[in-house]
């Protein structure tokens, strides 16, 4: 998994690529929680190039969401391929996360 940080229209985007599993989650957690700690708001996550996510990846995003909610920040997930989105809906997390079809939709929200 790779993590790329970028900015569009003044909004911070964390673009992820590859597979998010137990070997990748520590890096994801480090990068995500660093932005949460800085109170980056809103924080957009681009999933377009993510091909797989396991429960450790999901847990990392739940932790990130809780950190964002603690200061009233918005964590927006975007561009999920169907397999990744399916895991979020199976775990009923599509009810608590703001999920957008594309990163452009998330930027314009």
């Amino acid at each position, binding site marked *: 998994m790779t993590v790329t940080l970028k900015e569009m229209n003044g909004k911070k985007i964390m673009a992820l690529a590859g597979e998010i599993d*137990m*070997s990748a989650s520590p890096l994801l957690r480090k990068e995500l929680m660093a932005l949460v700690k800085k109170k980056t708001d809103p924080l957009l996550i681009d999933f377009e190039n993510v091909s*797989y996510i*396991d*429960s450790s990846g999901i*847990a990392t995003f739940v932790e990130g969401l809780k950190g964002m909610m603690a200061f009233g920040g918005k964590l927006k997930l975007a561009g999920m391929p169907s397999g990744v989105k399916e895991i979020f809906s199976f775990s*009923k997390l599509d009810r608590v996360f703001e999920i957008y079809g594309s990163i452009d939709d998330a930027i314009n929200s």
Partner: protein
Amino acid sequence: MKSCVVLTIPSDPQYLKVIRAVAGQVSIVAGMSVSEVDEVRSAVDEACSNVMKYAYRGNTERKIVVQFRIIKDKFEVIIEDDGIKASPEAIKGRDLDDIRPGGLGIHLIKRAFDSMSFDKRKKRGNRLKLIKHTRG
């Protein structure tokens, strides 16, 4: 039809991608649908992650043996380690309505397989047997 694929991997999370690849390919050979293949791949990943995390407590130098068996009307995955014994009664996922980190892996395993059980006869370590009934 009866066939068996056996894979031994180090207990290092970097090798989860290897186990996922093999789980996916064997599921295809077993005739599963695209969604079933995805579910099996995810479930086997979660089960092996649990071995690395709980049985081996993060030690990356142990081994995990995974057997995939295609038998007439069922698909079995047997995962063996020689780490700390699991307490099957303590293994339960979170209520999916309870939004918190963790506790999802067991749901992903149960979603893919019709049964999961630990072999009590195994003296040292764990032998987890996952069974999915197939159309045969």
